[in-house]
């Protein structure tokens, strides 16, 4: 493995979000997961198929982080949220909204942005 190696299906998933074709993995019983995933941990089904992610989801919980890890030093303060997209939830950074205005049940869309500190890609939510 080299320093520049991609993280397999995770980076492939970010690529899909960037190209507007975001997906998640669903088992035959409707449980949703993000890749990489080879088995549904809830029902043990291995037949996982790609399903289009909904265009928007609702914030399930959020926090404004003021004491970050070094990789987010220049990003702070920033909002991290878990967003419910139905069968799957995604954790990411909330952008384009005043942190004090972010609230549970706010509707947001999924995007890929960059960390201010390192320039690396990150999952980003923007208001819809």
């Amino acid at each position: 493995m080299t320093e520049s190696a991609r993280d397999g299906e995770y980076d492939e998933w970010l690529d899909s979000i960037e190209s507007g074709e975001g997906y998640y993995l669903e088992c035959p019983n409707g449980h949703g997961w993000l890749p990489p995933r080879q088995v549904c941990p809830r029902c043990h089904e291995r037949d996982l198929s790609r399903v289009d992610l909904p265009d928007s989801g609702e914030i399930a919980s959020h926090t404004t982080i003021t004491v970050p890890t070094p990789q987010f030093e220049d990003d702070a303060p920033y909002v991290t949220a878990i967003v419910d997209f139905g069968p799957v939830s995604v954790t990411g950074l909330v952008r384009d909204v005043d942190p004090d205005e972010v609230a549970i049940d706010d509707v947001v869309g999924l995007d890929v942005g960059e960390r201010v500190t390192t320039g690396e890609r990150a999952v980003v939510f923007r208001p819809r």
Partner: protein
Amino acid sequence: MSDPRIAGAGVTHFGEHPERTGRDLFAEAGLEALSAAGIDPEDAEALYYGNFMGELAEHQGHQGPLMAEAIGLDVPATRVEAACASAGAAIREAVKTIRNGEAEVVVVGGAERMTNIGTAAATDALAIAADDLYEVRAGMTFPGAYALMARSYFAQYGGSREDLAHIAVKNHEHALVNEHAQIQKEITVEDALEAPTIADPLGLYDSCPITDGAAAAVLTTEAYAAEHDLDAPVAITGTGQGGDNLALQDRPHLAQTPAADKAAEEAYDDAGVGPDDVDVAEVHDCFTIAEVFAIESLGFYERGEGIAAARDGETTRDGDLPVNLSGGLKAKGHPVGATGVAQLATVAWLLDGSHPRADAVPDGTVGVAHNAGGTVASTTVHVMEVQE
């Protein structure tokens, strides 16, 4: 099958010891435990040792044999890692080893060196107990993760930052007489509410400090204790462990900790007791909201009721069920890999009357220790009872 007796325990001062190596800290705790037990070290047959971030903090893996050597033992030694529940998981291995007859004397312990790398690097190291791809890269810190859980709890069940502040005030007050505690300072609800925010709604006083320290205990069989005339009245009568999805986003609930529910149920069943039998508890309050999750999962409170327990004085030292008489992780400190065994030692000392807060439970016979890893993706619960 013999329920292991706790023959002796040792805990270092928890605090900032940036220039003390992990092996030095563990040697202090381990040797104190062996001395307290009054056991010939030649009789020890295994070491189970908890540690989480040794590679990052000290560039040191393979710590099992290193720590056995540090306390003068030539025994099979295994490091157990389950994030902040590493030592709790190590206790389970020690209990199983004694119960299945593989050994009569087992040392269990843990240590963590954290302050030598500074707050930012320690925050980073702790964060790797979360899902790297889907949480750490989204800016998650541990205070951040518990903040998400706290906000979800407030939304689902109610509660406020002021309720959490009462938990911090209680645990600081409990720690005032604990010489092992990192923070021996009384605070007020106002102090907690006015402290700087770390990840809203959690502030500085909702969080445990970054801590160096070690803890160890010597476990043995009832027969060995009797044969060697050891003073070991407290036994570990129940052990349980539960797991959950690593990432918060993959769980059905953000405001419940089912891994702890499972661990508690297993430990209670194993011991043949229930939550109503418990006289005292040490629980994993890495953040104030974590104490709420713990006392609800342990069955002391219904969902949504645990938030008011400290405010209402029920879990204070003069309440019906004192929780975290040591000061908890909040004030005693949280050297991650040592915490589970420090909780075990505390409960044993509370039940045998040798802890400075033992007067809060003068007739106590049953105690529990709850040790959670990550955002409660790993949890161990141990029941301890005074034996006849």
